[in-house]
C-alpha cells in the first residue's frame, strides 16, 4: 500500500470516501468518480477482480472433488453460513465462514455475509423489482414505523437510470403495484407458468403472475458492451462470478467503470473502525481505518462520506463512531439508530403437480427462475387481520421419473432415458415484516473482534403479524393452486431464523423528522449532512420486493444530490 502515500495527509485526502464495495458502494463509486470526484473506496475484505478472481467459473461438474457438496467438517464448523442455499463447493470462497467474523445472536439470526470487493453482489439472486407508492406510503397508511420521506416520483427516474446501466430483463406488465422499468427482453414463462398466469388473470382481480424481472443481459445494449459485458449465456452458475458479465455485479459493472475514470482508489483489507467527526467544523472529516493485515490504524479524509458497508455493518460502524457530539453513535440524537431492523419472511413454500402439457418441456436454462407474483394482499385497502403482504415466487418444472430397481445395463438405460414425470409447480413466500423498536442491533459491551471493534449483538425476531401472514400465504396460494387444477398441494412452513432471507434492512432509517429517524430524504445523516447512508440500513420499511434495485437507485440519487450540494458549497 506504499503507493497510497500513507505518510502524508495530502496523500490520504480525497474528495469522497465510499465505505463498502458491494451493491450500493459500487454505485456510489461509479457516480462520484463519474462526476470527477477523487474517490477512495474502502473494502474490509480482499480484492476480487472480474473474471480473473472467479476460480471456479469455468469448472465442469466433475472437476469439483465433492461434486458440489460441502465436506462435513466445513459444514459442522459453519452452521450459519451452511444454511445458505448458495453456500456450495463452487462458491463457498465468497462467503464469510462463521468463525472468521463472530457476532452475538441474542435471538437466532443467520447473518450471511460476503467480505470482498463486490460484496454479496457477486452471489445475489439477481431479482429486481421496483417499489411503487403502495410501498412508500405503507408505513403512513398503516401506522407503523415512520413515513417514508420520499415517494415514487422522487425515485422513478433513478430507477430508470440504474436499470439502463445494470441491464434488467423483464416485461412491461402494466401493473400499478409493480411499476414497469427500462427493460431488456424478458425470459419467457414455460407452458405451465404461462397457463397459471392466464388462469390467475382471468379468475382473480388484481392478481398477476409475471415473468420474474432479473439483472441479466438477455440482449445487451451498447452501454453494457462498453462495460465489457456480453449476453447472458444461460449457464445459471452466477454465484461463481460470470465470465460473460451476464448478470449485474459491482465487480463486472460499476467498479471497473469507476476505475476506468481514473478517479477511483480501491483499498481492500481496510476495516473502517469509525467516522471522524470534527466538533469545530460541525461535520465529518474522514474515517479511521484498520489495515486488516498489519492492524495499522490509518486516517483518511474527504469532503463527503458514503456508508455502504451492508445494512447491519453500517449500523455497527455508525454505533461505533462516537464523539463528544455523538456519544451514542453517529447521528444518533434520536436514539433510534440500530433499531427498527426488519427483514423478509421466507419461511413458507408450496409444492404441487399439474396433469397437463405432458407433450411439452423446456430447453436450456432460465436465468429469471420462472414467475413472480407481486403483492396482492392489502394493496388497495386493508383487508386482512395482519398488516401488509407478500410477493411470491412461482415456477414449474419437470423431472425424469427414473426406475431405480436392480443393477446393470437395464438400470443404466432406465437412468439415461427415464421418462419425464408430470409438471411440478412450486412457490415460495417473500413477506414484508414490520420494523419495530425491539428488533434491533447494538454493540456488545465486552466482546471485540480481531481488530478491536465491538461485536454486533443482533436481536431480531418474527412476530404475530408474520405468523398470520404466513398462514394467509399458505391459504391463498393453496386456493389459487386448487382453482388452477393443481393437485397434491403440499404447503410446507419452516422456522428458519431471520437473516437467511439475506434481506436485512433498517437501523438507520430515513424519515422527515430528525427526532425519529437518522437520515433525511436524500439519505444524508440529519445532523451531519456530509455523511450519506445508502445501503439497506436506510430502509424505513421493507415492502416485499427484493431490495437491491432500490438501494442502487437511492444511491445514484443521493450521489447526484451530494455533488449538487458540494457545488453549492453546502457540504
Amino acid at each position, binding site marked *: 500500500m506504499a503507493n497510497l502515500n500513507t505518510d502524508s495527509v495530502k496523500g490520504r485526502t480525497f474528495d469522497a470516501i465510499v465505505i463498502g464495495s458491494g451493491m450500493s458502494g459500487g454505485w456510489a463509486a461509479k457516480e462520484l468518480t463519474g462526476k470527477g470526484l477523487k474517490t477512495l473506496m474502502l473494502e474490509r475484505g480482499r480484492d476480487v477482480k472480474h473474471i480473473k478472481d472467479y476460480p471456479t467459473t469455468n469448472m465442469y461438474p466433475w472437476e469439483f472433488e465433492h*461434486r458440489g457438496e460441502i465436506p462435513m467438517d466445513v459444514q*459442522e464448523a459453519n452452521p450459519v453460513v451452511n444454511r445458505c442455499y448458495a453456500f456450495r463447493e463452487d462458491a463457498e470462497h465468497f462467503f464469510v465462514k462463521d468463525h472468521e467474523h463472530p457476532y452475538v445472536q441474542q435471538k437466532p439470526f443467520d447473518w450471511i455475509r460476503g467480505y470482498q470487493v463486490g460484496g454479496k453482489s457477486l452471489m445475489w439472486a439477481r431479482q429486481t423489482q421496483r417499489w411503487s407508492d403502495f410501498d412508500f406510503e405503507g408505513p403512513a397508511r398503516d401506522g407503523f414505523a415512520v413515513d417514508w420521506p420520499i415517494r415514487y416520483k422522487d425515485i422513478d427516474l433513478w430507477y430508470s437510470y440504474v436499470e439502463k446501466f445494470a441491464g434488467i430483463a423483464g416485461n412491461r406488465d402494466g401493473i400499478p403495484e409493480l411499476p414497469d422499468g427500462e427493460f431488456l427482453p424478458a425470459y419467457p414463462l414455460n407452458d405451465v*407458468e404461462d397457463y397459471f398466469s392466464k388462469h390467475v388473470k382471468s379468475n382473480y382481480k388484481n392478481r398477476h403472475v409475471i415473468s420474474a424481472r432479473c439483472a441479466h443481459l438477455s440482449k445487451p445494449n451498447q452501454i453494457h458492451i462498453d462495460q465489457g459485458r456480453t449476453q447472458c449465456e444461460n*449457464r445459471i452458475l452466477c454465484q461463481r462470478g460470470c465470465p460473460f458479465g451476464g448478470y449485474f455485479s459491482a465487480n463486472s459493472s460499476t467498479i471497473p467503470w469507476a476505475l476506468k475514470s481514473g478517479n477511483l482508489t480501491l483499498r481492500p483489507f481496510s476495516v473502517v473502525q469509525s467516522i471522524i467527526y470534527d466538533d469545530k467544523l460541525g461535520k465529518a472529516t474522514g474515517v479511521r481505518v484498520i489495515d486488516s493485515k498489519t492492524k495499522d490504524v490509518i486516517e483518511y479524509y474527504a469532503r463527503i462520506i458514503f456508508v455502504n458497508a451492508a445494512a447491519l455493518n453500517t449500523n455497527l460502524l455508525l454505533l461505533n463512531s462516537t464523539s463528544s457530539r455523538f456519544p451514542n453513535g453517529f447521528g444518533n440524537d434520536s436514539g433510534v439508530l440500530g433499531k427498527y431492523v426488519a427483514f423478509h419472511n421466507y419461511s413458507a413454500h408450496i409444492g404441487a403437480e399439474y396433469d397437463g402439457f405432458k407433450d411439452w*418441456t423446456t*430447453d436450456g436454462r432460465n*436465468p429469471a427462475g420462472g414467475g413472480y407474483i407481486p403483492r396482492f394482499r392489502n394493496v388497495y385497502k386493508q383487508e386482512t387481520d395482519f398488516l401488509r403482504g407478500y410477493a411470491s415466487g412461482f415456477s414449474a418444472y419437470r423431472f*425424469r421419473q427414473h426406475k431405480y430397481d436392480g443393477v446393470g445395463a437395464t438400470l443404466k438405460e432406465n437412468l439415461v432415458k*427415464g421418462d419425464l414425470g408430470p409438471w411440478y409447480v412450486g412457490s415460495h413466500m417473500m413477506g414484508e415484516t414490520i420494523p419495530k423498536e425491539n428488533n434491533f442491533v447494538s454493540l456488545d459491551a465486552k466482546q471485540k473482534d480481531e481488530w478491536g471493534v465491538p461485536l454486533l449483538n443482533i436481536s431480531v425476531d418474527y412476530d404475530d403479524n408474520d405468523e398470520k401472514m404466513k398462514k394467509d400465504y399458505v391459504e391463498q396460494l393453496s386456493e389459487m393452486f386448487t382453482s388452477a387444477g393443481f393437485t397434491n398441494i403440499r404447503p410446507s412452513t419452516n422456522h428458519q431464523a431471520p437473516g437467511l432471507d439475506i434481506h436485512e434492512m433498517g437501523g438507520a432509517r430515513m424519515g422527515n423528522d430528525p427526532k425519529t429517524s437518522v437520515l433525511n430524504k436524500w439519505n444524508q445523516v440529519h445532523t451531519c449532512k456530509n455523511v450519506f447512508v445508502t445501503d439497506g440500513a436506510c430502509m424505513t420499511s421493507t415492502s416485499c420486493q427484493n431490495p437491491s434495485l432500490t438501494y442502487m437507485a437511492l444511491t445514484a440519487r443521493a450521489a447526484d444530490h451530494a455533488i449538487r450540494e458540494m457545488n453549492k458549497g453546502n457540504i
Partner: protein
Amino acid sequence: MNRRDAIGRVALIMGGAVIGADFFLSGCKPNTATQVSDLFDTNHVAFLNEVADTILPTTSSPGAKAANVGQFMAVMVRDCYTPENQKTFLEGVKKLDDASQKQFSSKFMDLTPQQRTELLVALDKEQKDFTTKRNKDMEADMLKHKGDAKYKAPNTPNHYFRMMKELTLLGYFTSEVGATKALRYIAVPGRYDGCVPYKKGDKAWAT
C-alpha cells in the same frame, strides 16, 4: 427464485431422484488426514470400482469404472459421511465379500461378471427390503411418540449397498464420462426456451 434447496439440487443432478435424498441430508463428521488414509486403500478403490461397474456397466457408453467412481466413493465417504455411516459403509465392503463367499464360494473380485450381477441384484433386493422395513419402523416409532416435543427420530444408517448404489449413481452421472457420454451435457446453453415438444426416449441432461 433460483434458490433451490439442497434436495432440489440433488434432484436435478439425479434427474428427480429421491434415492440420494437421505444421504445428502445426512451429516458427516470431521476427519483428520490420518483417519482418511486409514479408511481406504487402493485395493478398496479397485474393489469399489468393480462394484460400481457392475451397477453401471459399459453399454453403448463406458461404465462406472471408466469414470473411476470407486475413487469418488472413497472421497465422499471420507469427507461427507458421519462416523456411523462410515462404519456401516466399511463393514459393508466386508459383508459384500462375505455374501459372495456364501453364494459362490469365492471373493467378489474373483467372480465372473454374471455372478457379480447376480450377487448385486440380490443385495439390491436386500437393501430395498431393509429400507422399507426401516422406514416403516421409523414411522411407527414417530407415531408412538406423537406429541413428545423432545422426541428425536433415531438416525439409523442406510443399508451399505444402498450407500454404494447412491454414490455410484451420483458419481457416475456427474463424471465427465457419465455426463457427456451416457447423458447429455452442455456447459453453455446460450438459450432458454420455455416451450419445446417433449420426445420420449431422449437422453436426460446431466445438469
